[in-house]
């Protein structure tokens, strides 16, 4: 029985080069399909159930990156995908190999990252017997994949792979998992690759409804205090240029969510900054006062609305542009819903759109930003401030590096103090908030762009969640710059315990950790350390001038908090601006 949405007759497909019709094994088919999909790099970890695939990889043109943990492999594939816009591919064996992908799959799903995850499973004769390394990975990943497949027949394999790439990369992208039992990998059949995908049940809406776009244009003409909120959808659609043109033509200031940070230049004069829990004063004031909010590819996450959706942007008519109809009305009911791809919607609107009557408003927003910029005070004892480290990284790279982060205080400081100007240059786990994401993601991005500057910024907590991937940086001499902002604790948890749990610092102390410099050296990587501003500048210069991987540990002020802050459950007008020392 066919397992999935079979609509394509493989045998009717065209036969370009690469030996169509040739009898090959399932694993050979798989690798040929990957090459036909334009895949160059796969990240993975071998094991019993995928031995046939790894045997075929031995003589394949595909570049396989052996990570030291499946979670490292999937975050690397994710970083590769976020940096390039192309789907990331990961291979893992059955059972624990497959389950080790789960965090990475959920991370990609929450941030709409295209991934194709290939897992092995035990032979079908053993399925359901609790065989060694058997796990029902399609069942486990049902809620965290865009779609998944269990391949029962070798004849279905090429069609399924074709469909998987199509589903992962179109519409709202996401991870697709293909579980292949061992007997399918070793079976033989003639190879035919379908030319196109025919899925009757899957037709994402890309082009917007023109009447709705016209309604938006009329709303812009009437607005006095319009604002654009842009999210990950702009980046995914590759709509950065269109967004600049749209914002400039309409003279509407732009708020960039965490996921939308590299979707609009941080240095642009219409850029207000990030909104929400740790967003800037100006962005939150703009949300409180706007009369027209144009949301492009953002989903009104609770880090921005604070879950207080009824009080959110109360004075505004809301336009919501999203490729996923289910996002529209999920959290906020918009005045004008527009379903479509951000790039297409903006390209449709740009020729007709008029400049808004917004000069006063733009001046007001700028004034807010000047009144209350992101700021921190120097340590009286001359200790290194984490914000200073991020500023320094920004100053020395002019905002052009690819920066990855983990999750926590350092992530927020990067979002606040690094002004991203290059597209797809900020890679961070926004939705799931995955610690341990940043460093392997940087490895993936560096494989995609060997000549670009890739900087991984982590805290001492998150870095220890996937530090084993130092081996990859060393083995491939990847020039990734690994920054650890070490405050000897789980900083964001410490901050919440200080503010909301009466300074009861429960289990956040990481003082008894490893010597990061020696750890780097143990992996054959240069390790540097700084604990004052002057040292920081010196070691950072040295790191930038080093060919190959470098780990730089910045020992920063442990008690530093991220401000501004809106506490969870409060509204955006209840913003704490800073630590009044």
């Amino acid at each position: 029985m066919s397992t999935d949405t079979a609509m394509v007759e493989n045998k009717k497909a065209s036969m370009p080069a690469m030996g169509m019709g040739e009898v090959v094994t399932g694993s050979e088919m798989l690798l040929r399909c990957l090459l036909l999909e334009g895949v160059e790099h796969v990240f993975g970890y071998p094991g019993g159930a995928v031995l046939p695939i790894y045997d075929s990889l031995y003589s394949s043109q595909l570049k396989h990156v052996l990570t030291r943990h499946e979670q490292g492999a999937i975050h690397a594939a994710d970083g590769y995908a976020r940096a390039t816009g192309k789907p990331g591919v990961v291979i893992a064996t059955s059972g624990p190999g497959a389950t080790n992908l789960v965090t990475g799959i959920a991370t990609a799903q929450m941030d709409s990252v295209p991934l194709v995850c290939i897992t092995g499973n035990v032979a079908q004769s053993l399925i359901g017997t609790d065989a060694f390394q058997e796990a029902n990975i399609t069942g486990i990943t049902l809620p965290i994949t865009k779609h998944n497949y269990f391949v029962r027949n070798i004849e279905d394999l090429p069609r399924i792979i074709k469909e998987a790439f199509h589903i992962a990369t179109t519409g709202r992208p996401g991870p697709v998992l293909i579980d292949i039992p061992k007997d399918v990998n070793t079976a033989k059949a003639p190879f035919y690759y379908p030319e196109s995908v025919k899925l009757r049940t899957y037709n994402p809406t890309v082009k917007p409804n023109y009447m709705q776009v016209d309604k938006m244009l009329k709303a812009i003409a009437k607005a006095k205090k319009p604002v654009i909120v842009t999210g990950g959808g702009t980046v995914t659609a590759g709509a950065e240029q269109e967004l600049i043109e749209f914002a400039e033509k309409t003279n509407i200031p732009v708020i960039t969510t965490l996921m939308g940070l590299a979707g609009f230049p941080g240095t642009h004069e219409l850029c207000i900054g990030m909104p929400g829990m740790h967003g800037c004063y100006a962005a939150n004031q703009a949300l409180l006062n706007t009369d027209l909010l144009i949301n492009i590819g953002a989903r009104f996450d609770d880090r921005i609305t604070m879950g207080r959706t009824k009080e959110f942007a109360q004075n505004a008519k809301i336009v919501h542009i999203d490729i996923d109809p289910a996002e529209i009305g999920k959290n906020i009911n918009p005045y004008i819903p527009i379903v479509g791809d951000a790039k297409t919607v903006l390209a449709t609107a740009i020729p007709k759109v008029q400049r808004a009557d917004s000069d006063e408003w733009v001046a007001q927003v700028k004034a807010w930003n000047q009144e209350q910029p992101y700021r921190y005070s120097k340590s009286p004892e001359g200790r290194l401030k984490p914000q200073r480290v991020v500023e320094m990284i920004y100053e020395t790279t002019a905002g052009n590096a690819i920066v990855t982060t983990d999750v926590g205080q350092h992530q927020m400081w990067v979002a606040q103090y690094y002004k991203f100007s290059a597209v797809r240059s900020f890679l961070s786990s926004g939705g799931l908030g995955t610690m341990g994401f940043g460093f392997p993601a940087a490895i993936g991005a560096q494989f995609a762009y060997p000549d670009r500057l890739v900087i991984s910024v982590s805290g001492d907590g998150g870095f220890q969640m996937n530090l084993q991937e130092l081996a990859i940086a060393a083995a491939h001499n990847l020039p990734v710059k690994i920054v650890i902002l070490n405050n000897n604790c789980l900083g964001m948890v410490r901050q919440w315990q200080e503010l909301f749990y009466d300074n009861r610092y429960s289990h956040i102390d990481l003082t008894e950790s490893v010597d990061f410099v020696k750890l780097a050296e143990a992996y054959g990587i240069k390790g540097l350390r700084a604990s004052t501003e002057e040292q920081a500048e010196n070691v950072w210069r040295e790191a930038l001038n080093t060919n190959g991987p470098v780990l730089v540990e910045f020992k920063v002020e442990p008690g530093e908090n991220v401000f501004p802050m809106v506490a969870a459950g409060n509204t955006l007008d209840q913003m704490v601006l800073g630590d009044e020392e």
Partner: protein
Amino acid sequence: MEQKHTISVLVNDQPGVLTRVANLMGQRGFNIDSITVGQSEEKGLSRMIIVTSGDEATVEQIVKQFHKLIDVLKVQQLSSGPMVARELALIKVEATASTRAELNLIIDPFRASVVDVGPNSIVVQVTGDTQKIDALIELLTPYGIKELSRTGVTAISRSASLVKA
């Protein structure tokens, strides 16, 4: 306002599709009152009828989330228009020689029928809308219901509005 909604979901007839739909309901915190699935008018497609409760916004979100599933072809909120909804129940009731005649008097107005007779019990088959079945169960309860099996609601739009692929 919280109320019952009946949704028709046309899906690919594939293993695991029911799991996907049911899982989605659980994942998003939507309530399932009943779910039935069977063949549709077209080979290769099954129709699921889901009865859920919630306000209008919730049901709109459910419809949109179902649409996201790759195996879902069409979703329609049947209860927003004219529809026919039916459920089947089999009820095993304690019945002695003395109560049987009385039971028949209860069953007849419901156009239910006795489909099995045992020494101490009978099996009653009834079809109809949910309220009708609830009403019969209420009347039979004093006699002692030994077993009860309900199918959940299946439904179809009235001829004015076709739900087709």
